[in-house]
Each structure stands twice: as C-alpha cells, then as structure tokens.
C-alpha cells in the first residue's frame, strides 16, 4: 500500500468509506429487494456527499491503514476493559479505593491517535482522562494499582503501533 500515490490512496479511502456505509445500511435494514437496495444506494450516496461537504473525508479522519487491525484492537480493548472492570468492581465492594491524579504521556503522532488513546483510557473502568494538553493527559485513577497499570505504558504502545 506504501507504493500508491496520494490520489489513488484518496480514491481507495473513498471506496472503503462507501462500502462501510453500504454494509452498515444493509445490516440495519436487511432488505434484499432491488427497489429497496436502490433506495439504500441513494441514501448512502447522500450521506457520502454530506460528509464530503463537511470535510469529514480528510486523510486524518479516515486512516485506511488501521482498518484491518481494528477488529484485533477491539478484542484487545475488550480484554483490557474486562480486567480493569473486575478491579474496579472489587474496589467498589471492598471500599479500598484511593483516588489520585496522575499525568500520562502519549506518543501517538496524529490527532486521531491521541483521541483514540484518551478514549481508551476513559473507556477502561477506573481511569478517566480529565484534560488533554497536547501530548500529556491528566488522568484520574481510582486506585494506586490502576494508575500503575497505566504507567507501564502498554496501552500507549499498542495504540501507537496501530498507526504504523
């Protein structure tokens, strides 16, 4: 994919976006009649045109490279959520929480990556991103263990690798 020039990469990302939209339409409707499929096509084209006008189809917002890695990343993310969810549940029931603020450094290169990392931190129970200041996050953690887990930098590395 690295050999492609910028224009063909753009067209490729348009096609991918179009396919994703149409598959999404089909999952939600489930119709196979040709007339209804045609209506689906029209509505997908309309949404496509609107996102083009809203400049939502720039390179940064639709990173093609990560689409294939995304399902594996989600599985990994659900595993992380489950692990820290159990820790948080235990903390709520036994009352041994000690809330603390820590700062975490992000090493992602573009804005999508940083937003992704901040979202992943908030999504795992027990840690919430309060403030994003360029590449440092202010994070509120529910206990010492949870904040130490975050400071091992595993999550940061996984999300940075996602964009390679």
């Amino acid at each position, binding site marked *: 994919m690295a050999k492609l020039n910028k224009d063909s990469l753009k067209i490729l990302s348009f096609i991918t976006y179009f396919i994703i939209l149409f598959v999404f339409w089909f*999952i*939600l409707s*489930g119709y196979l009649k040709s007339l209804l499929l045609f209506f689906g096509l029209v509505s997908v084209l309309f949404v496509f045109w609107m996102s083009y006008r809203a400049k939502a189809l720039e390179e940064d917002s639709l990173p093609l490279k990560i689409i294939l890695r995304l399902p594996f990343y*989600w599985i990994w*993310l*659900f595993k992380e*959520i*489950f692990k820290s*969810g159990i820790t*948080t*549940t235990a903390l*709520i*029931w036994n*009352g041994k*929480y*000690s*809330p*603390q*603020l*820590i*700062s975490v450094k992000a090493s992602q290169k573009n804005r999508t990556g940083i937003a992704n990392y*901040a*979202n*992943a931190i*908030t*999504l*795992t*129970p*027990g*840690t*919430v*991103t*309060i*403030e994003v200041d360029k590449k440092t996050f*202010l994070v*509120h953690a*529910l206990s010492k263990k949870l904040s130490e887990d975050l400071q091992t930098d595993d999550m940061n590395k996984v999300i940075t690798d996602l964009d390679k």
Partner: protein
Amino acid sequence: MSYNYIELISLVLLAIGCFFILSGSLGLIKLPDVFSRIHAAGLIDTLGSGFIVLALIVYSGFSLLSLKLLLIPLFLIFTSPVTGHAIALFAHESGYKPKGKNKK
C-alpha cells in the same frame, strides 16, 4: 428438562451483566466525589451493557439481528468516553478538586 443449554448460557451472561450494573449503581452512591463516580458509571456503560448484549446475541442465535446487537457496544465504545470526559473536564475547569492524594 425444560431449559436447554443456550438459555442457560444467556441466563448466566445476563446475571453477570446485572451484577456489573448493580456494582456500578452502588459505586455511584458510595464513592466520594464526581471523578470517582464517573468510574462507576463507566462500569455500567462498558461491562454492564456489554454482557447483556452478549447474552441477547446468544439467546437469539446468529442472524442479522445479532449483527445489529453487535453495533450497540460498538457505538458505546465511541460515545461513552466522550460523555465521561465531558463531565470530568467540566468539573475540573470549574475548580472542583478530587479527593485523595494529588500528585501532578
């Protein structure tokens, strides 16, 4: 025997989901300040809804419906951190200090 295995599995998953929602609700009441309570709400958003959707998928069998159900947690992993972050940021900006040790 009136129960089959599929119903049993989905029943167990539903029970786990309900347990997480119960813990989250308990945390909402019990935890000391705004920031800590967001963690409890996050528990409901992710694990509570996740397990219940999983139970429904197992119960309904694999069809187009289960794909629709899978879209629910997919949207939740994009939207729920945004709300949590919005609440935390607003509390922080309006000068609310978290309880407990603070090292910056």
